[in-house]
């Protein structure tokens, strides 16, 4: 029997990059195929071609043995292809039903009135059939991220898709939500839906997929049944070399308290008290990991610590010196390094050359400034050194930093923040969206800083990252620190439960305790 979907020799050239190089792909009926690859490997390009967003330079698409031309998402939908994007395409103020109808409205004749009831009934039916638990009358803005994702899935199923593409679907989910999603996908598979699952997380791929295809630099470099694969092997295929999946770190040499936060209150842009009385201490030589699902106040917490957001009440001090509401410049001078959550928006000036991005917070001081003058020679000399020391892949120090890959952009930030003496490192989502090789590198750098006696505050929504790097873990939920625990005394499942709102006692009771085996993978 012909496969549900077959791509033959898909090739796509972008200026300077061969994004897809004669890629062949087969998807069988009722199969979950994982597409694994680093960022920029060409996974998204391939799927965008399949969904009609890009036109391939070469190659054919076959659906159930028949060649089809897909010239836009409308064609793809007609062919039964549905896509769940990484960033949800939902309108928060509308209800689930209205969101599902959008673009394909069912109306009465001859007066065109929306038939919400009819659509809602169909949504209920789909929801029941696949265990999605979505209320069609709920407004999207009131739904959690996990449920919103299920709304996206319903949108696709409602349009009778039998080929489902999910682009990095677990990036925004808690571990529990991810498990629920996997159950849903398995149930869909049972009912004959074929699924392409894009990911760079090895563990997920092995857990969920039937078959995995690895793409590196636009080419298919390997294909295997998941039962015959293991993480190390997949990682090697993905990166092209052996990768250390765990960070080698010794016990922490904990010193004096560096960062002390007392009863901190911070508001978000909508004037909601998003950080609601947080107290924390980070010592020299330790990594304190703040675990939490995105949107529980971590962003505002970090912004308040780094001078980007006003503290409403409470006290922050470094080495005993009060720095509450100090300016970013004063904090830089006090020895605070900040790896911001959104590297492109906050951490880099994309149009500036790499060399200039190394000095965006030190340009005003010698040796980079001589009086009023910018000292080019010193900037260039430092750029050369940092590019070499941090192994930043760039054609030169003078190309705009926007030309670099995400991993190398992050390395530019890390190199800059580590290029001056620091006491406290605040790293917010330091590896989000990065490839395995860069993650490995940045994790090692964080641990090196810890071992050099720097206090490290790590904020991450990736539980594996928190578990792999932290010496102590603080769980943040609804703006409060609900527990601070020794990282060696809890299991991942227990932290996961606390991230979802359980108290420490409940979590310890409900989830399996930590086995003594070291954590398998941090990726």
């Amino acid at each position, binding site marked *: 029997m012909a496969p549900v979907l077959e791509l033959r020799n898909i090739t796509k050239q972008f200026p300077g990059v061969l994004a897809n190089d004669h890629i062949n792909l087969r998807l069988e009926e009722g199969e979950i195929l994982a597409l694994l690859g680093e960022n920029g490997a060409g996974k998204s390009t391939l799927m965008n071609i399949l969904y009609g967003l890009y036109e391939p330079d070469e190659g054919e698409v076959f659906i159930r043995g028949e060649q089809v031309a897909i010239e836009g998402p409308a064609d793809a939908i007609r062919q039964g292809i549905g896509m769940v994007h990484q960033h949800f395409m939902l309108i928060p103020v509308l209800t689930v039903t209205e969101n599902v109808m959008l673009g394909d409205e069912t109306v009465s004749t001859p007066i065109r009135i929306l038939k919400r009831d009819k659509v809602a009934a169909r949504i209920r039916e789909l929801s029941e059939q696949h265990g999605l638990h979505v209320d069609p009358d709920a407004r999207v803005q009131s739904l959690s991220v996990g449920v919103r994702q299920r709304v996206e899935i319903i949108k696709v199923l409602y349009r009778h898709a039998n080929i489902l593409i999910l682009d990095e679907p677990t990036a925004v989910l808690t571990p529990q939500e991810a498990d629920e999603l996997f159950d849903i996908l398995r149930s869909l598979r049972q009912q004959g839906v074929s699924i392409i699952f894009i990911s760079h997380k090895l563990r997920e791929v092995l857990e969920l997929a039937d078959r995995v295809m690895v793409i590196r630099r636009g080419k298919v470099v390997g294909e295997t049944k998941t039962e015959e694969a293991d993480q190390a092997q997949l990682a090697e295929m993905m990166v092209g070399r052996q990768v250390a999946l765990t960070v080698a770190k010794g016990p922490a040499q904990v010193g004096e308290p560096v960062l002390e936060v007392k009863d901190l209150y911070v508001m978000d842009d909508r004037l909601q008290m998003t950080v609601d009385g947080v107290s924390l201490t980070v010592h020299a030589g330790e990594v304190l990991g703040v675990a939490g699902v995105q949107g529980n106040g971590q962003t505002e917490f970090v912004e308040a610590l780094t001078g980007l957001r006003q503290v409403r009440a409470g006290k922050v001090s470094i080495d005993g010196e009060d720095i509450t509401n100090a300016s970013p*410049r004063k904090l830089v001078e006090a020895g605070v390094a900040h790896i911001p959550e959104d590297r492109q928006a906050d951490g880099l000036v*994309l149009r500036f050359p790499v060399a200039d991005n190394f000095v965006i917070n030190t340009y005003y001081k010698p040796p980079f400034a001589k009086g009023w003058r910018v000292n080019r020679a010193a900037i260039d000399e430092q750029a050369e050194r940092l590019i070499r020391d941090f192994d930043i892949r760039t054609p030169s120090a003078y190309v705009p930093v926007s030309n670099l890959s995400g991993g190398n952009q992050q390395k530019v930030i890390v190199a800059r923040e580590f290029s001056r003496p620091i006491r406290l490192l605040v790293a917010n989502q330091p590896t989000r969206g990065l490839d395995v090789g860069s993650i490995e590198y940045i994790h090692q750098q964080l641990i090196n800083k810890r071992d050099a006696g720097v206090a490290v505050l790590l904020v991450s929504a990736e539980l594996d990252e928190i578990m792999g790097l932290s010496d102590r873990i603080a769980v943040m939920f609804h703006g409060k620190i609900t527990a601070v625990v020794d990282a060696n005394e809890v299991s991942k499942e227990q932290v996961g439960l606390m991230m979802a709102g359980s108290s420490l006692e409940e979590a310890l009771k409900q989830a399996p305790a930590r086995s003594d085996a070291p954590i398998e993978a941090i990726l």
Partner: protein
Amino acid sequence: MDESSSHSVTPKSKDAKKKSSSWASAMVVPLLAVFTALVIGALLIAFTDPVVLDAWKHFFADPMGALAATWQSIAVAYGALLSGSLGLVEIWKALGVWLHGGGTEALAVAMVPLSESLTASVPFIFAGLAVAVGFQGGLFNIGAEGQLLVGALSAVYVGYSFPGLPIYIHLPMALIAGFIGGAIWGAIPGLLKAYTGGHEVITTIMMNWIIISISAWLLKVGGPMSRGELPITPEVLPSAQIPKFFSTQGNRFHAGFFLALITAFLIFWLLYKSTKGFEIRMLGANFKAAVYSGINVKHLWVFVMALSGALAGMAGTVQALAIDHWVGMGFSGGMGFDSIALALLGRSHPLGVVLAALLFGTLRNGATRMQSVAHIPIDIITIIQALVIVFIAAPEIIRWLYRLRQPEGEEAPIFTTSWGS
């Protein structure tokens, strides 16, 4: 991650080469925009000419005649534009006369079109720099028109109020007055943005209206700055006038031209060589990163707007002290708005602004002669300028027309931060 690319930093020589090629690519679109606008302008000239239209009616009988008439019409108009703005042929002839022992008088006369073009470009250079500095800092200063008027009024006031001073004291005083007047008028929208969040596009437009109304009161007959029975200011004293060169033959070329070039160089130095310029460009390129890097963006907004206003003020100051020697209503005549186009055409780079200003000055000056010789209304220049702006603002049109590729890694220049930011 591209592992094949080299780790090491490219040597300087290669880098210099890269820089020059990016320079060339930055020039392509503006040059083609000007060229295309001139071509469309030519078609407009030809096909609004009754002679040409008549010839085209008989196209099938006499196709060559129609084409010849078209060509003739364009050649006369653009010929007049060229001779009126540059007059290189006349200069060449006069040079010959002079070299063969003739007087310098003919040469001075022949130089008039060129010197008038350079003279006309002087205020454009200042005003273009004003808008360009704003763009570099992410601010859209639409208030050059008003700042220019404030500058001119301040300079002229000082220029007629202090008799008996030597030129080396009086002239600098008048220049500084114009500079400060513009700076204050520019700083107000900067302060409003920094401390109340008022968007500079709105506030600078309103500041234009305010100064236009104030100047109407100042200059009305019997008003505080009027000249007796006339609604204009008194004449600037000779000790505050910017000196002209060879003014005997009606040449108005003056020292302000060199002041403009020096200012352009200083702005270049400020933007690209100083730490302040590093801050300004960072603010313009990424506001959030500027905050992250510890810049006091409120102070910087005020500084950039004050500098922008001061430069615009200098445009009015130099024009008033060198050419007009007084200020009346309608003094600026839209120059402040033309300067926005100039800054766009010059890609907000001081050198680009100077080149664009020379082009605008030349077109403006040549258009006068075109009107008298070829009877082409001067408005055609306005249309050509507008087309240039359209093509610069929508470079895709040019890329499509000439089948250019989007240069790699180059984004459209960001002129201003978004509304309400």
